[in-house]
């Protein structure tokens, strides 16, 4: 887990990590979200509609942006404020995603950073892009 403080951040700071999409993730997300649409549970249904097989939910992959902010950039001292996400290509069980984020703007007066993020699969295809705003946690008196 990274522990960037606001003062450590600079324009262009980039982090990345990999994630493998598993069947367990898909099954868990169906339960978590309640989205058991046949698109995500019925192979024949998915293939009939142009997919190679069952695609995972876009929002499942979006969870990795949460990891990007909470674990990598800023990490322990950061928290998510806003996400704008586009799902640009299907993602399937077995895919290996590289998730990366780059600091593109620093709002110094209010300690907020803007991150341009993306996910690329093992074939180099862009499967998701996002604009993320994150803040920094500060110690306060325990309530």
């Amino acid at each position: 887990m990274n522990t960037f403080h606001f003062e450590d951040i600079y324009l262009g700071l980039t982090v990345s990590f990999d994630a493998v999409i598993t069947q367990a993730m898909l099954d868990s997300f169906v339960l978590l979200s309640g989205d058991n649409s046949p698109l995500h549970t019925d192979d024949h249904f998915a293939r009939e509609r142009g997919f190679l097989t069952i695609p995972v939910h876009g929002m499942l992959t979006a969870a990795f942006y949460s990891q990007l902010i909470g674990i990598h950039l800023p990490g322990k001292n950061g928290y998510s404020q806003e996400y704008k996400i586009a799902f640009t290509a299907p993602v399937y069980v077995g895919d290996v995603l590289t998730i990366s984020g780059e600091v593109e703007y620093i709002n110094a007066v209010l300690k907020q950073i803007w991150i341009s993020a993306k996910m690329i699969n093992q074939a180099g295809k862009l499967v998701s892009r996002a604009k993320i705003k994150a803040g920094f946690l500060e110690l306060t008196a325990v309530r």
Partner: protein
Amino acid sequence: MSREIVVKRTQAVFREIFDDEQLVINDSMSASNLANWDSLNHINLIGAIQREFNIKFELNEVQHLTNVGRFIDLIIKKINP
């Protein structure tokens, strides 16, 4: 830069932040009468306006930005020192 141009560019920022292409700003507009002007969008506004005009606010300045008119006045003060 004229106030008219500042207002026009600020309006574009407000439209982007509030995701409303029809939004027309005025000096008296504030968090009390513009939906979704919450604390997060206030932070987003500060950042977006700084970036749009290539200026930097001080903490004591942003604390008094209670309506659009004050935003405009401060932007003009920053870009026309």
